[in-house]
């Protein structure tokens, strides 16, 4: 069995245990093992990189060191964690001088970055370790042609030179994974643009405006739901709908589900076990549609 060290991050356990739950249930069914290592910390995402880039690289590298010591590759669910860790891993592996500089900082915590492990996004594990064919064969409850708007967000794809998840302008990984579950992937305007998540708290107006555009475009394209990969995109688009209703008196009613939640349902997990009631936009009509 392929096993990974699970990098859980902060936002998922704090705010979206439903994401973790659906991912754990699905990966177990697909034969992917997860190991919860002690002493992991924050991944040092963009808000921390904004304060001190060098320290952020060291914090991210520290977490990779823990996986190296356990002889495991890392699996991330949150795209923010993926960006911080995969970017750091790629940068330090490619630049001996930078690696030396970061290792001098890590020495204070008794760690040394070796560059012996990989950081994988949940989607890459599904595509590469499980594979689309095996995934299709594992589906016991196809999504019944549910129209799903894939939402990549930013940090699963970009900076692409370091992350190498898919083509940053024309990705297919999420679309293919949606179709493998028996869903219909829906095209919509500005699919690859930002959810506004990182502007929340800095300029809520701009953040909501960015989310609003995605809600407008996915609704116009006739999508039944939006599928996200990242807890920040989820908040921007799910709770965002409630805030947009308050601010712009504009009502959207498009459920937002993490890809892992659609996956868990397609693999036969009872939706009642997934904590879907924590979503602000009710998912009942999606469940009814799948079970129709």
């Amino acid at each position: 069995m392929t096993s990974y060290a699970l990098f859980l991050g902060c936002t998922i356990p704090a705010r979206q245990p439903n994401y973790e739950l659906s991912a754990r249930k699905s990966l177990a069914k697909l034969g992917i093992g997860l190991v919860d290592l002690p002493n992991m910390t924050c991944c040092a995402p963009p808000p921390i990189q904004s304060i001190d880039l060098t320290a952020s690289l060291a914090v991210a590298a520290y977490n990779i060191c823990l996986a190296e010591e356990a002889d495991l590759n890392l699996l991330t669910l949150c795209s923010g964690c993926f960006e911080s860790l995969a970017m750091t891993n790629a940068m330090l592996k490619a630049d001996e001088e930078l690696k030396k500089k970061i290792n001098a900082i890590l020495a204070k915590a008794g760690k040394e970055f070796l560059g012996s492990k990989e950081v994988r996004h949940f989607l890459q594990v599904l595509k590469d370790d499980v594979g689309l064919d095996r995934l299709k064969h594992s589906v016991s409850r196809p999504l019944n042609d549910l129209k799903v708007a894939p939402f990549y967000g930013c940090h699963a794809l970009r900076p692409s030179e370091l992350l190498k998840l898919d083509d940053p302008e024309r990705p297919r990984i999420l679309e293919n994974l949606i179709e493998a579950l028996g869903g219909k992937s829906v095209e919509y305007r500005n699919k690859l643009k930002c959810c506004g998540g990182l502007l929340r708290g800095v300029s809520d107006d701009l953040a909501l405006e960015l989310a609003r555009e995605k809600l407008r475009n996915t609704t116009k394209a006739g999508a039944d739901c939006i599928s996200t990969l990242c807890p920040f995109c989820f908040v921007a688009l799910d709770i965002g709908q409630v805030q947009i209703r308050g601010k712009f008196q504009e009502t959207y009613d498009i459920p937002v589900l993490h890809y892992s939640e659609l996956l868990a349902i397609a693999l036969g997990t009872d939706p009642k076990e997934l904590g879907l009631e924590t979503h602000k936009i009710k998912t009942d009509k999606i469940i009814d549609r799948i079970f129709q």
Partner: protein
Amino acid sequence: MLLCYQCGTCASSCPVAKITPNFNPREVIRLSLLGEKEEVLSGETIWLCCSCYNCQERCPQKVEVADLIYTLRNIAFEKGYTPDIYSQFASALLEEGRIVKVSKFVENKRPAVGLPPLQPTGIEAMRKILSTSKFKKPQQKKEEDR
């Protein structure tokens, strides 16, 4: 940054520039090249970048636009020009080892839904790593000092 010839590909790829006149990555670069330190570092502009990296992906001159904005923010933080929420992230990181705190309430509910217990955070190791970083510098100036 010196490679920038002001073509504006970054600005036309920027989702924020599309909805507000207050942020334009091309202008941030131009002002930086002209040495307008105070204007670039003290204003809210550099904090309006949503870090989506579209500009960096598309720059024909391979200017690392998004990374440049991070660098400007690092300098601005040292000078005390930081939005409150970023200062809160910095304190949470030092106090909790996480930028978003997991409440006891949420943590205690994990077994009931079938989630394994949370592992301890490596807060001590992280404090050592951050001990010589900007996180340990005297905290930011207050709003009225700007």
